[in-house]
């Protein structure tokens, strides 16, 4: 069942077409990987879906509802969570307080919101750090914090912008395992990712963008062999 439908979405900034005529669907329970070189329009696509940027054309339909004109907070309340490429933790609050703010979307009672936040923090393996201020956490831990905070709104769809970007190699397997656990818990995920091995491993479908346009959409194996994707992003190993 389709949970998100993006139809002919377009957005230009001045003369630059950040997104142009992009269409795709995400089915409930799957992971959609989004790849493309820098400047391909991946983060802009997330901003368009979540209402941070308004589209010039096209529409976004979430669970049967056109959300193209809604504000980000309304979209969040409907059940779309997101993380940011540039981390945005509430630095002067503890990890627990950060996640509690997400919990308040579905729960007004402080004790219940706190218990819910604690369970999510446990899920992302940071329970021991719950009283640490966000600014005291490592980059990898802050990535988990953002994931936990987005999860706290109990999203039906979670948009993750480069979750493994900027973290050390040892941290990546834990984050990948976390994404798999998230999927197993029933959350639909769209993730922007530069690490091609990870994207091939976790994705059910992959959307490839280049210069603001969709150049391919399909199963990981098909994308891996798609000539346009190889030319624009994956490249080839020169064996001559």
């Amino acid at each position: 069942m389709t949970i998100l439908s993006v139809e002919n979405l377009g957005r230009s900034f001045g003369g630059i077409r950040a997104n142009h005529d992009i269409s795709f669907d995400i089915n409930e329970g799957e992971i959609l990987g989004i790849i493309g070189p820098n400047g391909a329009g991946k983060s802009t696509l997330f901003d368009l879906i979540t209402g941070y940027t308004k589209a010039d054309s096209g529409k976004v339909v979430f669970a049967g509802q056109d959300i193209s004109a809604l504000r980000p907070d309304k979209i969040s309340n409907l059940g779309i969570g997101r993380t940011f490429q540039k981390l945005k933790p509430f630095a002067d609050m503890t990890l627990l307080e950060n996640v509690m703010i997400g919990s308040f979307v579905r729960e007004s009672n402080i004790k219940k919101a706190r218990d819910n936040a604690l369970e999510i923090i446990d899920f992302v393996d940071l329970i021991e750090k719950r009283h640490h201020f966000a600014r005291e956490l490592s980059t990898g831990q802050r990535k988990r914090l953002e994931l936990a905070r987005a999860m706290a709104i109990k999203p039906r769809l979670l948009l993750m912008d480069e979750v493994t970007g900027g973290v050390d190699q040892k941290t990546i397997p834990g984050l990948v395992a976390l994404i798999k656990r998230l999927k197993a818990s029933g959350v639909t995920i769209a993730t922007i990712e530069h690490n091609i091995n990870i994207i091939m491993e976790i994705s059910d479908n992959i959307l490839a963008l280049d210069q603001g346009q969709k150049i391919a959409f399909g199963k990981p194996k098909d994308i891996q062999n798609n000539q346009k994707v190889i030319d624009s992003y994956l490249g080839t190993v020169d064996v001559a």
Partner: protein
Amino acid sequence: MDSVLNTAKQEPVWHSNKKIILLLAVLTLFLVIFPLLGPSSFYLHLMIMIFMYAVMSQSWNIIAGLSGQISLGHGLFFGVGAYTSSFLFVEYGVTPWIGIFVGMFFSAAIAVLIGIPMLRLSGHYFAIATLLIGISFQIVFQRWELVGAASGLWIPLTEGSSWFALQFHDSKVPYYYIFLVVFLLCYLFVWRLNASKIGFRLRAVRDDYQAALSLGINVSQYKILAYAISAVVMAPMGSLFAQYILIVDPDRMFNLEISIMVLLMTVLGGIGNIWGPLLGVAILIPISEYSRIYLGGTGGAVDLIFYGLILMLICIFRPDGLISLFPKHVLARERQR
């Protein structure tokens, strides 16, 4: 890991530092019995000013420290509170006790009305807009005949002290207790606000509005809410101060100095922390009052020189305010444990 989770769930929702609570209890008790120790009229006045500015600075701390909007014209809500209760008493004989609540209502309404267009602005633009709004209120009241224009309103004196008219001619002690109660209620309210869902969300708006949006927070609505709450906290001080000096005029009640003073005191003590404003007030008000005694009149503006000097030192050495001198774990208030 489950055991850690279970332990975490059983922790008290709010960490309470018993030493701090004991200290606060002792301090409150001291404040309650202070008039019984026979202080001079000056010391009662000093304490009244500390209570008043502690509430006013806390009001500014709500908008600036909690929601991150720097208001430079916050004194206007002090003036609105003062004029509302005084006008109702002078013209219609309505007791100031009711006037205080009407003033709070008007202040909230004005905050919402001017907040809707102004809170679209941010940073310096919001600060400049509030400064100009504050000045414009003074100009309007200077020309508004209904409220006495530049002469203001002279509150008719009752023959003796009267709780109905909130006038006490023989002693400052009743004023002391009234200001003390409002001060304690204000700090209790802000402490609860900090620990509430609204408080959490306001801090989220302050720290990163884009992240706040992604967590379902209507940022504009919360900014207006913070502005209205801070106006409601400020207004009663205007009403009570009017009853204390029994005269309201635009130059005094809408004085730009009020807005600047509450800002200075909060920044000195520590912006964003519930105890910051109180600390700043406890230092600056005595300086101000003593300089008035020793130098006469307005204190020869020596207090302002002190303020400037202290502010410079704070900006250089303690940008988080004097409250940052205390170890964080001692002041573990809002921090979830």
